[in-house]
């Protein structure tokens, strides 16, 4: 019986080649939209994650703190809730960094003494990169003996958190709307295929075919069309990625910094194809709803 159902499905694909191509094409276009959005959202998420990793609270130390005292402070700050890493930056190291960032020492040559203070660079754990996490750290570190000033960029963190929530919500919301739109379009396309083969379905029903016998081949056809649509979408997205990324490299560098734009990993690509297959199957199911011989 399974062989008969599969054979019927394959024959159905063959006999309604134009509608099958239209259905697979519709699924491919829908998935290109969803996939492109997922790529953009994924890369933005990666960017925000990297910003988060660079997010630091800097405690500038008073000038009379020596290395040993600074080390004690490092150990103490490391015990504060949410702290992932604490690094002591000596005045010499700070000056060296400044020189590197200025691209040479020309501007700094006239300096008689190092004006830069020592500092503690405190990195928060990802779960604490929130305004609340910063507040806990500020309360614990501000006023510690030896701490002169605290630079914590609270506003920046709040902005970062807001953007992160926005991107995640938009990814879920827009992705959902696109998937729903795709499902409706696919269901309508497949419904056309059902209408085109209404005579065949009526004859099957006439000779005593069960609902399963009539519907399963359509579900299989829809699943196969969806999988093909998913593969086509993946190919189109990859081609667009390869062709467009070098064209907009400069803009991307401004936006992404040193981070390279990335395409889907193998697992994510498989999900896209599986989503196509699922979309095709659900579309077929929806198209068959209400059909009666």
């Amino acid at each position: 019986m399974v062989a008969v159902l599969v054979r019927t499905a394959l024959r159905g694909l063959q006999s309604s080649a134009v509608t099958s191509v239209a259905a697979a094409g519709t699924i491919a276009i829908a998935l290109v939209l969803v996939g492109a959005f997922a790529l953009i959202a994924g890369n933005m998420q990666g960017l925000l994650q990297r910003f988060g990793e660079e997010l630091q609270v800097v405690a500038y130390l008073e000038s009379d703190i020596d290395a040993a005292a600074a080390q004690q402070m490092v150990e103490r700050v490391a015990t504060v809730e949410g702290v992932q890493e604490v690094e002591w930056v000596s005045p010499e190291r700070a000056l060296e960094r400044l020189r590197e960032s200025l691209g040479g020492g020309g501007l700094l040559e006239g300096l008689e003494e190092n004006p830069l203070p020592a500092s503690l660079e405190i990195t928060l754990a990802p779960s604490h990169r929130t305004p609340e996490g910063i507040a806990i750290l500020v309360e614990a570190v501000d006023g510690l003996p030896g701490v002169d000033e605290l630079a914590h960029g609270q506003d920046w963190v709040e902005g970062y958190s807001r953007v992160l929530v926005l991107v995640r919500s938009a990814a879920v919301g827009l992705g959902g709307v696109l998937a729903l739109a795709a499902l409706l379009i696919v269901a309508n396309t497949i419904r056309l295929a059902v209408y085109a083969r209404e005579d065949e379905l009526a004859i099957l029903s006439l000779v005593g075919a069960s609902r399963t016998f009539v519907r399963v081949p359509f579900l299989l056809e829809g699943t196969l069309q969806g999988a093909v649509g998913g593969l086509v979408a993946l190919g189109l997205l990859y081609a667009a990625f390869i062709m467009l990324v070098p064209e907009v490299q400069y803009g991307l560098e401004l936006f992404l910094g040193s981070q390279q734009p990335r395409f889907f990993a193998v697992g994510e690509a498989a999900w896209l194809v599986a989503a196509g297959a699922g979309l095709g199957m659900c579309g077929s199911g929806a198209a068959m709803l209400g059909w009666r011989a």
Partner: protein
Amino acid sequence: MRGSGRRATHAGGESPIRLYHVSKSYLAGSFALHDVSLEIRKGEFVFLTGPSGAGKTTLLKLLFAAERPSEGQILVRGRNVGRLRESAVPALRRRIGVVFQDFKLLPRRTVEENVRVALDVTGTPPREARAKVFQMLKQVGLQHRRFHHPLSLSGGEQQRVALARALVNEPEILLADEPTGNLDPELTLEIMDLVVGASTRGTTVIVATHDMGLVERYGKRTIRLEGGRMGEDLQ
């Protein structure tokens, strides 16, 4: 036990088709069939006659559950067709062969595949199905055309394919709605001989036709419908 009881009733009753005061209305106040009662015995051959619009097709549709009666009871093989659940309809149709004037064949499938579809839906193993289809096509004289497509066949041949599909499951009942309506006189007799042959092998046959010449030629029981009502019932 209930199942065997039903079989006993059916076998003992010897009337696989019974209608009690059956009416069918598509529009309020107008009846396609009105208060029709009849009984057809096992293996009987019945002509259903009457002018166009008399209700012949409606009556056949009620028998294979393509329509439900508006009033009355229809018993087919002991089952009340009017109350049959949707999921039970396929099982009923596997025991009823149906032939139409316009053949209703699948144009993209070969003759063999068209006949075989009736066995596929019952889950018949492929080897057995192939053998049965070959035997059936041989019976209707089309074994040599089994790999042809319906549109390459003559009208008579197409109707023989439709008949083979209707009979390949060895149904208890064969319903034929104007089966010779599209055929010339010679092909008409060819098809009718095959239908009568099925009847002599024990299949209960109802042929709807308005061709009175055909009715007279075969001299079988004839039920006349007029305006949806029962007319003469000539045994």
